[in-house]
């Protein structure tokens, strides 16, 4: 409930079961080749299944993978 004085949870990192990692705020994500990628949105979805065509960002590809290839 919206009680004044109560702190709400608002984590910088959220792991989505079977899908991406959400990152809040500005960050630099370095891919496996050491190339840095800057986030540009208030919240960014970082690919965890490694199959995104927009890697390192999630493009929804995790949804068409068989369950065992989807991130925990």
């Amino acid at each position, binding site marked *: *409930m*919206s009680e004044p004085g109560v702190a*709400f949870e*608002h984590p910088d990192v*959220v792991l*989505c079961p079977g*899908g*991406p990692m*959400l990152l809040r705020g500005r960050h630099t994500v370095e891919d496996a080749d050491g190339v840095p990628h800057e986030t540009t*949105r*208030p*919240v*960014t*979805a970082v690919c965890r299944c490694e199959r995104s*065509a*927009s890697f390192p*960002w*999630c*493009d*929804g*590809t995790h*949804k*068409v993978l068989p369950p065992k290839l989807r991130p925990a």
Partner: protein
Amino acid sequence: MLTTAPTAVGDDAALALWVLHELHYRGFAGVDDGLEWEPTLLQVRGLLEADLERRLRGRWTPPQGLSFVDDALEWIDGQDGVSLARHVHRDADRDQVLDLLRVRSLYHLKESDPVSWLVPRLGVPAKAALMELQFDEYGNGDPNRLHHHLFATGMAAAGLEPSYDAHVDVVPLEVLEQNNTLSLFGLHRRLRGAALGHLAAFEATSSLPSRRMAEGLKRLDLPPEIIAYYAEHVEADAVHEQLAVRTIAAALLDEEPDLEADLWFGAFTCLDLEDRFARRMLDRWGVGEVAA
């Protein structure tokens, strides 16, 4: 005093409701802005809306034993409606794609606006969560990145008139119903659960289809500006679908658990209307069914 729905049905009723709803957005050139709150028109709007809502609810059966926050994304994935994006990706010709852009423009040129009605109606966590998503839809403060502006820019580059009432004469009934439903859900505080369920389903059926749209538009040599609109939605909606379910719907249910059924109703209705729209367009182009 009007007590029964006007006798208009089908296209006429849908068009009338669309016109009445538009008075709450940007109105029409040459039409008195005061008509937005004219009691007789509000009454007609109410009767047409009641009829629309009754028909939408009549098509819906609530799923059993599922939790919206935990199960909605998977449930949405499992509803295979007809996919226009698949047709655009591989087979559509240029005229079909331009036809699709014109009819989609009715919504894409005011994308996210019906959802903005909800902001004052939510508790603190749900309101903040919704604004986190909406801020991205509105370009994060940069007008050049605002999604409905990206679509307008893309339309102009493709040689299409980019104002949102320009193509109302060529849209099928299904498009008017999609738009009327968004306005109905947005304008009635009572339907805030349905509006947020609709949002979740809309966002969760966008990333992969937007990729197919972008590829199809490239195949047909459409201008980069319209391709950019779809490319933006590949990444943006991969974020938005997670936010719509895991933060916005979760926060809403935390405060108002009774709205869970309406979240499902809204999500179902979004997919159902899109499926009916997709079938209508394939029919209009003389194309057989394309699986999701």
